[in-house]
């Protein structure tokens, strides 16, 4: 047995001889002794000196031991101050009273010093155990508060990042647990400079702060690259590389990313590890599944990453529905999963398209699944195209260094055309000219249109009339991929010329390609408002830019942008 630390022990006993005997025994065992001749004295001494243990006679004048024990336990609060009743009480009723008053043990008269020493030791162990438990409880509580506070801060920071996008756009409906961030679900949406919309629904492995930490750079890349005009492929590559670099090996992010083009009436989809999404065609009522064709983000090296996307035509009013695995993995009391079939039954039974979320939630409740807080659903519909109306980005420079008299020419050749997307770079260059910033959306739309015309119809020789129906649409993108893969020669040239003009300036864009050209007169004869799937975007370019014209049998396109005095 290890040596016991000396304790301060209060002895409350009205019989002077017993008090003297007991205090002598206890003192000789190495403890400090306080003595009281009745209950009131005992309570008073306890209050002033806080002894660690009390030896208490039951029957005492002024205040008996039962009442004194109650008051001392009250004063001690959560701290365990063991009370050993000194008693020759033999009736069980009296012993019960001792316990009810808070007594922890008994010591019978006549006193036996060996038993007394053993009891003091046992009670001291109990007392220390309680103190340790309290200390650890307080420690845990402090850690818990600390953690909650960190999560609150992380959530506040993250909400700022996640909601800087356009989740509140009229064509987006979503349902997410308010603490979705901490179960790893992530939903982002933002406009591209051309007015297309990028949407990402992600699901991190892991929960809590680690998931939130991974979500931050993902969101930054999403917003940053979308705003600069990068497409899905480049943005996904960057996200994958970044997550691969920063996440531990057992952590990754399943994600579906969409590029919804209102102008082209199409959606481009990349799904890595998420449950099937669905493209709901309103005209036929059919739901086209958008299955996962890739590994999640953050697993593959940059070299092995596959950024191949699928493109589907969409009609005005068509909807895309994405969901997290929280929906289909909801389980009932027998651990049965809700599953894809039940989800499709909900689809089939759904009468009002606008009530799909509610129908799914109701089905999950009816299924008897335990409510999960990681159910995320989003529905994005295709609106009628209205020329790029995205808010102009905020810039931090003064405008003093704005370059106003320059020109530059690029020639992008075969192997570059396969992979490189020069549009973000060109746009960034042009936005150094302050006067152009107010029309960055239109500028980007026109550049993107001219470049993709030059590449797809010019260099690759694709027939735009293919895109008139859904089957042709798929064929078009199949051919685009095949021809791009096989591309050896050919070029797209981009000439940019900026000149001062009065108080403002003028930008001339000329895009040439190595293709066969087209019948300019025939295309120009079409009515302007006919913004259709095909037609080489001529209408769009003419609407958004000035003096648009095509030369060299359609192989060279020119358009101008003007700006006046800066505000």
């Amino acid at each position, binding site marked *: 047995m290890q040596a016991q630390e000396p304790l301060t022990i209060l002895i409350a006993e009205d019989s002077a001889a*017993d008090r003297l005997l007991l205090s002598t025994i206890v003192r000789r065992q190495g403890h400090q002794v306080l003595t009281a001749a009745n209950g009131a004295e005992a309570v008073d001494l306890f209050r002033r000196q806080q002894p660690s243990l009390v030896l208490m006679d039951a029957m005492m004048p002024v205040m008996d031991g039962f009442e004194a024990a109650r008051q001392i336990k009250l004063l001690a609060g959560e701290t365990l101050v063991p009370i050993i009743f000194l008693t020759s009480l033999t009736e069980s009723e009296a012993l019960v009273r001792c316990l009810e008053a808070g007594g922890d043990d008994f010591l019978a008269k006549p006193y036996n*010093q060996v038993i007394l020493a053993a009891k003091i030791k046992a009670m001291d162990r109990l007392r220390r155990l309680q103190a340790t438990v309290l200390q650890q409880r307080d420690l845990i509580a402090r850690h818990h508060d600390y953690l909650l506070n960190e999560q609150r801060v992380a959530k506040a920071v993250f909400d700022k990042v996640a909601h800087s996008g356009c989740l509140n756009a009229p064509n987006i409906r979503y349902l997410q647990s308010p603490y979705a961030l901490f179960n790893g679900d992530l939903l982002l949406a933002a406009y591209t400079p051309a007015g297309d919309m990028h949407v990402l629904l992600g699901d991190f492995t892991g929960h809590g702060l680690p998931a939130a930490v991974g979500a931050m750079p993902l969101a930054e890349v999403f917003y940053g690259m979308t705003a600069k005009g990068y497409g899905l492929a480049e943005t996904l590559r960057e996200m994958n590389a970044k997550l691969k670099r920063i996440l531990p090996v057992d952590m990754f992010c399943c994600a579906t990313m969409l590029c919804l083009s209102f102008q082209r009436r199409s959606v481009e989809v990349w799904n890595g590890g998420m449950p099937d999404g669905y493209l709901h065609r309103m005209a036929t009522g059919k739901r086209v599944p958008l299955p996962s064709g890739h590994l999640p983000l953050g697993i593959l090296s940059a070299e092995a990453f596959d950024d191949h996307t699928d493109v589907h035509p969409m009609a005005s009013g068509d909807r895309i529905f994405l969901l997290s695995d929280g929906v289909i993995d909801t389980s009932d009391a027998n651990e049965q999963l809700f599953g894809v079939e039940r989800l499709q039954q909900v689809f089939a039974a759904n009468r009002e398209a606008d009530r799909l979320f509610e129908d799914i939630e109701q089905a999950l409740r009816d299924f008897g699944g335990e409510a999960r807080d990681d159910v995320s659903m989003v529905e994005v519909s295709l609106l009628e195209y209205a020329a790029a109306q995205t808010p102009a980005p905020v810039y931090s420079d003064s405008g003093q260094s704005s370059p106003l008299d320059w020109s530059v020419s690029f020639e992008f050749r075969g192997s570059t055309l396969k992979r490189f997307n020069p549009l973000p770079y060109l746009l960034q260059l042009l936005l150094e000219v302050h006067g152009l910033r107010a029309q960055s959306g239109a500028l980007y739309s026109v550049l993107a249109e001219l470049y993709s015309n030059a590449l797809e119809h010019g260099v690759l020789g694709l027939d735009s009339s293919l895109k008139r129906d859904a089957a042709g649409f798929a064929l078009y993108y199949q051919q685009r991929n095949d021809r791009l893969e096989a591309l050896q020669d050919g070029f797209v040239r981009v000439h940019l010329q900026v000149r001062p003009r009065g108080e403002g300036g003028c930008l001339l864009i000329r895009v040439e390609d190595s293709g066969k050209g087209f019948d300019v007169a025939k295309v120009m004869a079409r009515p302007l408002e006919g913004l259709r799937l095909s037609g080489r975007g001529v209408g769009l370019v003419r609407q958004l830019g000035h003096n648009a014209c095509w030369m060299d049998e359609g192989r060279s396109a020119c358009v101008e942008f003007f700006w006046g005095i800066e505000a």
Partner: protein
Amino acid sequence: MTDPHVDRDILDTLREVMEDGYRELLETFLADSESRLHELQDSTSAKALSDVAHSFKGSASNMGAIRLAALCQDLESNAKEKSPEALAQLVADIHSEFADVRPVYENEKHPAHTH
């Protein structure tokens, strides 16, 4: 030879435990007992008698006065049931038992005394 009044083994233990305080303990016990006897004499209710007897029993047992403790135990347990005459008799018995053992404790005060 066992003494039916005082447990000599308890006295030996007490002497050992108390060392220099043994004499004080004896004096305290004797003085305490005197006042308990007065209290018994003055008590009018069965409850008061029982309470005093309880305390007296405790110290008597601690001091090895085994017959005194047993008489006090009888009084403590049966004060309510006994007739006034029987109670008076029991109190008188306690008085005389104390008178009998008192010299033993007085005698113990002398340091040279051994058994």
